[in-house]
Each structure stands twice: as structure tokens, then as C-alpha cells.
């Protein structure tokens, strides 16, 4: 199933936040969204998942969601959003219970997603016992449990330290290589964008407009840490963004 953001415009009050955004997210690909702070990336992601409505424009699902998909558009949040009173297993079963999946069927799904995110030994732990990277892996496991058509990820790694971030990027690449998933991935970090994105959409500062769309053809599995090809693309992205980012920074100071 593909997703299309079609001619989206948005105002908060009188402030124009997003202007004429059209993005296609093809099935089985990761589309990264980068842009200076405050340009409306999170807002766009909320539109994509139906948590908010744009002033004008539409979000379209093209085609049918895959078989056994419980929650078509599924978020992975920056702050993990795990229920602190439920164990790792409980947090995952939370999203299955409402679909009437309990008992052995739920157990099978939970065991599978825990294995895919290397959390099998921690299923009884409470969130407070886990490190940041593990918490985000639980959140990813929870998202995978509902077998989503599209993952909507809002800076999923930015609350983590840079080593953990590297490790988790590797995890995401492994996950994708084994079973390709579709994702709209918002990030501040250009290294993440060139590492995970098949396509990188660069937004301008507020009002957010599409500056450029960069396609990266190199297969995910072949991209590595400090990859020379990626460095070139990353530099290009940074050149696009530098002035915008500086201007955005100064704009925020004025407010």
C-alpha cells in the first residue's frame, strides 16, 4: 500500500506552517523528511497518521493494506510513549488486546516481534529498568506487532546517545532487509537520513515547502558508517539546509 500526501497546506491561526506539500511514499521504501527546526515536520506526520487535519489537501492511501494488518498507520514516537506500569510484554499486548487478540495468538506475535528486536530476555522488565535504546526497541516491537502498512517515525532516535543511535540504525536496516517495511521517517540528523532513506525530502524553513527531493539508490544493506558516497549526499543536503537552518534559528530568537 502506498501513501500520498496531496497538496497539503496548513495554518495554525494566522501563521502559515506548511505550503503545497506533495509527497509519495511508495510501498516498501523509507522516505526521510528533513528540515530546519519548526518547519512543520511533526505536524506533517500527524496529518499522515490522521491525528490532525490539514487546512487543505488530502492524505490518500493507494491500494489495500496488507493481509493481517491491524493498524495501517502506526507511529513510533521520539519519547517512546511506553506505559510505565506495564512490562515490555504488557506494552506490546496493549495494542493487540483491542483487536481481540489474546492468549496463545498474542503470545506468538509478541514472541516474534521481541525476537526481531532482540528483546526476548527482557519481556518481563518494566520500562524504568530499560535503557533508552531498549525502550525505543520496545516501541518498535510494539509498532511491528500490529503489522502496519506504514510506519510513521518522528525523530525516533534523537533521544538517544550517538553510539546507541548507530546500533539502532543497524537494527532498523536489518529489520528492513529481512522484511521491507514502508516508513515516513522524520529526523534532524542528516546522517540518519542518508543511512536509512531511499528518498530524502528536504523542507524549507517555515512555511515549510519542499526544497528538493533526493533519491539514494544504494541498497540499505550496503550503506555503512562513514560511507564515502553517503558523505557526498549528506554534504549536499547540508548545503541545502544550512542557510534555512540559520534563518530558522534567528526567527525563533525573535519570537
Amino acid at each position, binding site marked *: 500500500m502506498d501513501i500520498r500526501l496531496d497538496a497539503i497546506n496548513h495554518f495554525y491561526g494566522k501563521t502559515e506552517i506548511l505550503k503545497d506539500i506533495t509527497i509519495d511514499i511508495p510501498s516498501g521504501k523509507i522516505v526521510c523528511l528533513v528540515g530546519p527546526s519548526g518547519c512543520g515536520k511533526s505536524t506533517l506526520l500527524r496529518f499522515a497518521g490522521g*491525528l490532525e487535519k490539514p487546512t487543505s489537501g488530502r492524505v490518500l492511501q493507494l491500494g489495500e493494506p496488507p493481509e493481517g494488518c491491524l493498524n495501517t498507520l502506526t507511529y513510533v514516537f521520539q519519547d517512546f510513549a511506553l*506505559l510505565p506500569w506495564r512490562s515490555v510484554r504488557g506494552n506490546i499486548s496493549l495494542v493487540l488486546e483491542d483487536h481481540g487478540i489474546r492468549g496463545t495468538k498474542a503470545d506468538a506475535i509478541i514472541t516474534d516481534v521481541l525476537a526481531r528486536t532482540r528483546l526476548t530476555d527482557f519481556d518481563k522488565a518494566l520500562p524504568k529498568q530499560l535503557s533508552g535504546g531498549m525502550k525505543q526497541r520496545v516501541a518498535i516491537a510494539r509498532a511491528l506487532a500490529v503489522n502496519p502498512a506504514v510506519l510513521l517515525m518522528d525523530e525516533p532516535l534523537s533521544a538517544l546517545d550517538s553510539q546507541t543511535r548507530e546500533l539502532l540504525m543497524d537494527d532498523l536496516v536489518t529489520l528492513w532487509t529481512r522484511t521491507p517495511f514502508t516508513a515516513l521517517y522524520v529526523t534532524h540528523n542528516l546522517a540518519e537520513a542518508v543511512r536509512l532513506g531511499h528518498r530524502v525530502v528536504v523542507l524549507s524553513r517555515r512555511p515549510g515547502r519542499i526544497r528538493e527531493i533526493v533519491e539514494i539508490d544504494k541498497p540499505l544493506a550496503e550503506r555503512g558508517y562513514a560511507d564515502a558516497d553517503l558523505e557526498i549526499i549528506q554534504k549536499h543536503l547540508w548545503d541545502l539546509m544550512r542557510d534555512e537552518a540559520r534563518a530558522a534559528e534567528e526567527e525563533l530568537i525573535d519570537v
Partner: protein
Amino acid sequence: MSDTAFANTPLAEETRQSEVRFRGGGFAPRNRRWVGFVVFAVLIGLAEIGTRTGFISNLTLPRPSDVLETIVQLYQSGLLFKHLVPSLTRLVVGAALGASIGISVGVMVGLFSYVRAGLVPLLAALFPIPKIALLPLFVIWFGIDEGSKYALIAFGTFTPTAVATYSAVDNVDRSLIRMGQSFGLSWFSIVRKIVLPGAMPGILSGLRISLAIAIILLVAAEMLGAQYGIGAYILEAGSLYDLERLFAGVVILSLLGVLVSTVIGIIERRLLGWRT
């Protein structure tokens, strides 16, 4: 000086040395239960010594050992339970009624804008009323017997519980609710699995206060008209200036307070173990 010289820059060791002062302690309550007992024991011990030596006259303060004896006598004569059972029944029935209505109303206020707009001013108006002043009204509405006492205690626990509950619901992490919605959880599931557990810490600390108020109102209600009950016992002792019995009653009330607070503590430890 070049950067490489850093490696052999000597530390100023020959100058005065002092260890960095530790200033990170405190602000983390830990389980030191014995301290509570020590405070009680010291206070009671001082009173005992003071009354025995005559430093404190018997008219000012009864001797703690005499008070204990009075309690033992009360127990042996079987009167203790004759007073305690009706009191406890009133407390349990009244507080359960008040707390459960308070929690339900608080949750509704927390969840629905219309209920909030309608009830928050009402709660603000009800909160500062000294509930004891309404006892005559309750006697007319619910009769002179148990009904009016239940109503008084229930009403007294209701307002603080409702207020504590709705602020607890307000404080539930909105990002968790967003998460629930984004996974397509039903409204009812979000309330039951996210809002209520998230509000539980606030509800329980509200209950601590409400139940203390319930004990105060219990005594007040019993003083105004009851044959048996701790309040009636204290009132009778007070009117005779029988300080030993008065204090015996007060001690029983304090024990009741400690008991309630311990029970809530146990519930907190069982339900809120997830807190950091």
C-alpha cells in the same frame, strides 16, 4: 604552547588540597520506619517521666501508663469493640461511598469538557464548606440514625477525592493518550488502560487526605448524636474531665489514622511499583 604539551602539564599538587564537598544528598525519601517509632517513644517517655516526677501535674496531662491501662480495661470489659465496631462501620461505609463517587465524578470532570465546565465551580463552592455545619441538614434529610452519619462522612470525603482525581487525570501524560489513539484503541480502553492507571498516584495521595478528613468527621458526627462510637466515648469522657479516658479515645483515633495510612501505603507499593 602547543597542544601536545598538555600531556606533561603538571597538576598543581603542591598547592593546598581540599576534597570536593558532597552536596547531592537528601530529597529522596527512603524507608526508615524505625525513626517514626523512636519519635513516638521519646515523646511518650518524656510525658511518663514528667508526670511521674510531678514536673507535669496530673491535671495537665494524664500519665501514659494510666492511659494504656484504661485502654486495656476498655478491651477487657468488651466495651472497646462496642465502640469500635459502629465507628469502623460508619467510617468504611461513608468513606467508601464518598471516595467512589468522588473518583467517578473526578474522572468525568477530567474527561468531559461539559462536565468540567459544569462541576468545577460547584466543587470549588462545596470544598470550603465545613461539612460539620451541615449535619443538622443531613439529620433532616437522612434521619438521626446511621444515615446522616454516612452522608456526612461521604460528603466530606467526596470533595477532596473528586478534586484530587480530576487534577490527577489532567496530569496524565498526553503523549501516552496520543499513543493509544494512534494504535486505534477504543475510547473505553484508553480510559481504563491509560488514563486510570496514569491517574492512580494522584488519586491515592488524594485518598490519604480524604480518609483523614473522614476520621475527623466520624468523630464529629458521633459527638453530635450517638450512643456508641469512639466520638461518643471521647465526648462523654470530656464532659466528665476524665483525661485518661479522653486520651484513650484519642490514642485509638490516632491508631486508626496510622492504620489507614499504612493500608494506603501498602496499596501504593503494590500498585505503583512502576514509578521511578
